[in-house]
């Protein structure tokens, strides 16, 4: 009997504590009118519930944090109620979470990671009255849109800063997985650095993790031991920044402004600004004007940005970045425009030819000047 009771107690602990420990799906209704000019919007918006599914914890200070900033901005701007769930694995679990949210009354769902795509597509057919938004994928259905930003444009700009700063002409790049999104970023970064410093070499180290701060720091240390003097990253943590800070090197962040994390090293970062998209789309759902779409915009729509340069950035960087920004905005700098050479020096994109979106989305080769290997 005692045994049974204790087993029951242990099980209760599992259930009760697992539930209470995780940050609960908070609902922070924001009924205050944020600005006085648009009070009429809020009547309809008040009843609206928007759900967010995150792949990591908000506390990552990176990718998920950036999405959550967008969610908070949405609450502030429209006064809608939002619910969210952190650290949802990219498995069938996501279906369960979405059902939960719809049961709670959510009429728009933002699923913010690539691996959710198939599950969201499947479930969108079950709930035709709900608007689904999937981040970074390629599938759409009648009521499921996909959205992402051309972060490579901001990476190109960050490459300019790194290219001007480096003294060894070797830049380290801590990267997660050899998928097109990451490869595209590395190429854009390298092209940006080469645009101001043709001798630059970008050394890539793969970590095979999105989220392991200590391991990603070790990867950066390995690069620094190998002679690079600047660390850039495509990871969801600030581990690599920490490595640069400790070694007296300089760094380029990612996702959010990381200046407080590595005050002596951090120069700038390509960052996300999801808020305006979330506001526009939620408004469209409220107005009944939502239609399925594939959204892949860049700096012109302000969904991606370069974070403000810190005092660590080199002289002349601000001017160079401003000039390049202007060119990107007016379309005269396309970034992935020929002539582009691969690592072996072969012409991959002929002079004057621009890579199509499709080609960019499936890119699987490094440009000349990148040291690293893509496992096929």
């Amino acid at each position, binding site marked *: 009997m005692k045994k049974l009771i*204790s087993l029951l107690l242990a*099980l209760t*602990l599992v259930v009760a504590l697992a539930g209470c420990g995780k*940050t609960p799906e908070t609902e922070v209704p924001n009924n205050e009118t944020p600005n006085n000019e648009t009070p009429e919007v809020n009547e309809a918006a008040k009843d609206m519930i928007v759900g967010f599914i995150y792949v990591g914890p908000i506390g990552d200070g990176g990718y998920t944090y950036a999405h959550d900033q967008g969610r908070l901005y949405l609450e502030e701007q429209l006064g809608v109620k939002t619910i969210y769930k952190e650290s949802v694995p990219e498995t069938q679990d996501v279906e369960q979470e979405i059902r939960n949210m719809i049961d709670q009354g959510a009429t728009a769902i933002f699923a913010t990671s690539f691996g959710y795509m198939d599950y969201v597509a499947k479930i969108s057919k079950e709930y035709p009255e709900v608007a689904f938004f999937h981040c970074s994928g390629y599938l759409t259905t009648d009521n499921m849109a996909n959205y992402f930003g051309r972060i490579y444009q901001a990476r190109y700009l960050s490459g300019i800063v790194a290219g001007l700063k480096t003294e060894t002409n070797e830049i380290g790049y801590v990267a997660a997985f050899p998928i097109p999104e990451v490869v595209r970023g590395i190429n854009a970064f390298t092209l940006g650095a080469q645009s101001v410093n043709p001798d630059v070499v970008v050394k890539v180290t793969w970590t095979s993790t999105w989220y392991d701060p200590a391991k990603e720091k070790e990867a950066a240390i390995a690069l620094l031991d190998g002679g690079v003097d600047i660390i850039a990253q495509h990871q969801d943590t600030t581990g690599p920044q920490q490595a640069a800070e400790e070694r007296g090197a300089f760094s380029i962040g990612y996702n959010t402004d990381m200046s407080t994390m590595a005050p002596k090293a951090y120069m700038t970062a390509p960052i996300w600004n999801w808020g305006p998209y979330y506001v526009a789309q939620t408004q469209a759902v409220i107005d009944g004007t939502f239609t399925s779409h594939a959204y892949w915009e860049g700096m012109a729509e302000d969904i991606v940005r370069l974070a403000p340069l810190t005092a660590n950035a080199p002289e002349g960087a601000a001017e160079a970045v401003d000039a390049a920004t202007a060119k990107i905005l007016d379309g005269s700098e396309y970034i992935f425009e020929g002539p582009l050479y691969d690592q072996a020096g072969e012409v991959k994109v002929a002079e004057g030819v621009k890579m199509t979106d499709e080609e960019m989305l499936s890119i699987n080769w490094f440009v000349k000047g990148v040291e690293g290997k893509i496992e096929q």
Partner: protein
Amino acid sequence: MKKSSVLWTIVICLLLIFAKIFMGTSFLVAVVIAGTPLLFATLGELITERAGNLNLGVEGMMLIGAVAGFGAGFITKNPIMAIIGAVIAGALAALIYGFLTITLRANQVVSGLALTIFGTGLSSYLGTNFIGQKMPENVIAFYDPIQIPLLSKIPVIGQVFFVQDIFVYFGYIMAIVLGIYLFHTKTGLNLRAVGENPSAADASGININLYKYVHILIGGALCGLGGAYLAVVEVPQWQENITAGRGWIAIALVIFCKWNPYKATIGAYLFGGLSIIGFRLQHLNISQNLLDMLPYLITIIVLVISSMKKSKENSPPKGLSVPYFREER
């Protein structure tokens, strides 16, 4: 000296020389750092298992130690408080497990898993206060590497092992202290008896529950320190779930090191090294997938080899994961 320890020494020396020649001293320095959180967690689990309790809550205790250590250091701006906070929090977490498994005699596996889930959640929940926060500079400076006079002058070994931070040194000391305690003291002998055959130990007048409680708490404190090392020293800014599965590796390492604290150091550093060696081999034409597999591959190989050699020394404590009922003798 026994034959096996001579063999081990030779193997370690060869590994060191090999690593020094092919990877350089800086790699070895990084290996020790990467292995330190594993070492603490392995020692913690080892001492718990020696008392006959299998605690699968290592990951949870590490995370609770991480958040408590970070919180205490961040709020008080005192590096010592960070350590104390982690130790107390890790021990308290282990107390939950101890109460369930010793007093209530609950299933050890279920209780341990519950502790991991609980600890992960609690750590994230408490950590929301620290999102985007960094350790104060004076705390970080306190954990800068310190040169040990004389010892740091030994070629290679000195630079690798004796120009490190306080935590690392504390790890060496703990391994040695636990080794002496287990194999050369009376209480250590009693502890082993509790783990091997609690009924017999009970009959000889050992207070089984007291022994189990004390060592489970010590184990929890050590796991808490392992977590705190990651959050306070290695990446001194708040990052949720910073252990990223290291607690589970530590549980495997206890088997790997055959419940021996000295061998735990070898296991922890070997594993730490394997987890980062890939970063320095990528310029060679080795498959990245193979490099990612390496730590796990080696574990399997070592486990297979060590289980082929059946000896009393290498087997787990006989009373492991069996709740002790005095009445059921």
